[in-house]
């Protein structure tokens, strides 16, 4: 954190940087002028001028190689700022052919930044990569491997695969490590092409160099995610490695903020979480080392807490163990009580995992959770809603859904709005234990239906129609069974919802002639419709009505608007025409006239 503050201060003071090397004054001037540009437009002008100048100069014959290197760096810079410098790509490719490491390295950097693995120019690079993978100079091999990770795709894998596999046994650990990562990348691009080589990953797990071993954990994690059973035999090995790491038996170079190789610990914990999940025997091997790590973790540093969090994730995903669950609950508690927002966030997430195993654990943290819900930090709020969603039971569904709706109405992010709306509906649907509950519940609160009305009014277009339709059927069925005692206002509210979705699927329902449709139709009472006509006419003027809602309104008005003689047909039609004009783009709405 300190270094970051230093950087911040330096930025504020605009102080001199240390040791920039080798670039010409022109580059220095360019960067300076970009920095001093007062608007994006000015910045764009400067860069476009630069690009034009480079376009001319790069095409000149016999450009000295060092100067070409600088041109290419400047083109990388231009593209980083969002402009196109594709005329320079071919020169970058040519630079990778150069024998000198300095130029080759720049060439490789440029092509990995410029090109994606399906670019036409890749063919010209594959040969170079092949050649460089066989170089005597291990640094050149490394540069080629790094480039291969980005530029080699499914088609070109066969061209380099044998060489990369050979490099897994290279004397230099940096090369072995990069070869592992390259092989992993190839596996991600095309699992089939690498599937016969998977045993190599197992071998590298036992590599002498901790860096190579650590790198191997990446592909192993992916492999285990895809097929957990084939790797159960490695549980004991992973546990043993984790134990050694936790006991500080790796070189000090892997220490980070007083923790022993924490990044490696985290990777191992993720792997063990997968292997122990649902498997009592495998989990049995893991318990001891987990307990040790819980005890040894430095909870005063960020990285210590990151490891602790990963432990909690592991504990909650493997076969349950009471002592470890207690330790996890205790750590979660500390997170929630912390001042740091980051830790509170992790605490909420951890709580969400623990309640799957033991729902009661949420009880004692209710206050902390509510604090997070009220926090102005949006990230924390969203996370807490996710937790609430997991915590919903029939006893608290109304409170939770209520909160969720309030929040949903207040946010602007449509993607997220849809999510919350769908969740509200799912919860109400899920926790309606019986039709009896539904009716009684709503009679006393008039909650659910009003609520659902609100949800659909605000997010009707976005809510997944299918989810909502199931809800509608639930409501409709409820009516079928017990309509005599139902409150009439209740039925009309319910009916709003029914119509809302009934119309989006009208033909379908009639086509099927389900008894629900018949019951719905039977339940239509003119009075109810007339009431609705009035309120719908009122609402019609409101801007931004979701089109589903509008469809319903139009149908009702069309069918029953003139039923009691209060409004003339022309009045109704006039109103509807106003709507058509306002909603020209929506053909479905028009159909309902």
């Amino acid at each position, binding site marked *: 954190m300190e270094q*970051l503050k230093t950087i911040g201060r330096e930025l504020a003071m605009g*102080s001199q940087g*240390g040791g920039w090397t080798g670039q010409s004054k022109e580059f220095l001037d360019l960067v300076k002028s970009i920095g001093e540009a007062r608007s994006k437009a000015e910045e764009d002008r400067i860069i476009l001028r630069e690009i034009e100048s480079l376009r001319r100069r790069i095409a000149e014959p016999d450009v000295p190689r060092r100067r070409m290197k600088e041109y290419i760096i400047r083109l990388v810079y231009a593209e980083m700022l969002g402009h196109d410098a594709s005329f320079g790509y071919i020169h970058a490719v040519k630079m990778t052919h150069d024998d000198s490491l300095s130029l080759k390295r720049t060439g490789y950097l440029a092509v990995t930044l410029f090109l994606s693995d399906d670019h036409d120019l890749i063919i010209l690079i594959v040969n170079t990569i092949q050649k460089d993978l066989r170089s005597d100079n291990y640094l050149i091999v490394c540069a080629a491997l790094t480039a291969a990770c980005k530029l080699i795709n499914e088609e070109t894998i066969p061209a380099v695969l044998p060489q990369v596999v050979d490099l897994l046994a290279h004397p230099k650990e940096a090369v072995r490590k990069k070869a592992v990562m390259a092989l992993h990348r190839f596996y991600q691009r095309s699992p089939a092409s690498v599937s016969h080589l998977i045993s190599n990953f197992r071998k590298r797990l036992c590599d002498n160099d901790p860096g190579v071993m650590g790198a191997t954990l990446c592909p192993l994690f992916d492999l285990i995610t895809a097929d957990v059973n084939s790797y159960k035999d490695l549980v004991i090995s992973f546990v043993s490695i984790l134990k050694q790491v936790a006991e500080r038996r790796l070189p000090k170079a892997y220490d980070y903020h007083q923790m022993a190789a*924490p990044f490696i610990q985290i990777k191992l914990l993720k792997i063990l979480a997968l292997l122990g999940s649902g498997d009592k025997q495998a989990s049995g091997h893991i318990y001891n080392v987990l307990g040790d790590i819980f005890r040894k973790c430095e909870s005063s540093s960020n990285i210590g807490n990151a490891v602790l969090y990963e432990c909690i994730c592991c504990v909650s995903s493997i076969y349950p163990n009471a002592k470890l669950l207690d330790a996890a609950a205790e750590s979660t508690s500390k997170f929630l009580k912390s001042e740091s927002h980051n830790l509170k966030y992790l605490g909420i997430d951890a709580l969400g995992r623990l309640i799957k195993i033991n729902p009661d654990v949420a009880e004692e943290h209710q206050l902390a959770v509510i604090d997070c819900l009220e926090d102005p930090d949006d990230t924390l709020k969203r996370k807490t809603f996710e937790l609430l969603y997991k915590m919903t039971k029939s006893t608290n569904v109304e409170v939770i859904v209520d909160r969720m709706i309030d929040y949903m109405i207040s946010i602007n992010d449509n993607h997220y709005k849809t999510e919350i709306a769908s969740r509200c509906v799912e919860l109400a649907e899920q926790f309606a234990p019986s039709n009896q509950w539904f009716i009684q519940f709503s009679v006393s609160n008039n909650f659910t239906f009003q609520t659902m009305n609100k949800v659909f009014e605000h997010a009707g277009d976005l809510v997944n129609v299918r989810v909502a339709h199931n809800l509608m059927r*639930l409501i409709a069925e409820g009516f079928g069974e017990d309509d005599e005692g139902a409150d009439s206002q209740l039925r009309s509210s319910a009916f709003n919802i029914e119509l809302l979705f009934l119309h989006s699927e009208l033909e379908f329902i009639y086509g099927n002639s389900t008894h629900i449709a018949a019951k719905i139709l039977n339940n239509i009472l003119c009075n109810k419709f007339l009431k609705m006509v009035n309120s719908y006419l009122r609402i019609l003027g409101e801007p931004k009505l979701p089109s589903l809602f509008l469809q319903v309104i139009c149908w009702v008005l069309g069918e029953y608007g003139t039923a009691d003689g209060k409004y003339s047909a022309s009045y109704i039609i006039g109103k509807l025409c106003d709507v058509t004009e306002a909603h020209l783009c929506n053909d479905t709405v028009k159909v309902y006239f």
Partner: protein
Amino acid sequence: MVRLYPNRCQLVGSAFISGFLISLVRSFIHFVILISRQGKVRLTKWYSPYQQKERSTVIRELSGLILTRGPKLCNFVEWKGFKVVYASLYFCICIDPDDNELEILEIIHHFVEILDRYFGSVCELDLIFNFHKAYYILDEILIAGELQESSKKTVARLIAAQDSLVETAKEETGSISNMISQAM
């Protein structure tokens, strides 16, 4: 309940399958962006496929989202179904929702500490004028969107080796051209 949508499960099933296939090509880290307090781009590295136009949009959206957040809030934001972890001077890393956010925050610090050691108390100007070197260092820490090396010493050693070979190459060129110019 009458099933009006008998094919719903099938639809859901196939969506799940295609989602899984896509995920085999994704990275653990989707991209790394470094922006200044004014929203100027200092470094961008993309580990998942993003077209040039998408990249500009991403940068614009994230700048708007992150630069306006107060100092005491979480260092994580949700964005389009992903999570973005950021640290001040605005190193931003985009990950999937299920990943360990605090670990990524520490990866950012790990990167900064290595930059610090390399440049000797790094400041923003170092990164501006030597952005290509920052890329070399980043390529030693992260590769294909995964953490490649967690030992600062190893990274420093490798970069130093590369630099010294580069320097030697430069010297050789220098001395050769000297010889030539003297011979003339």
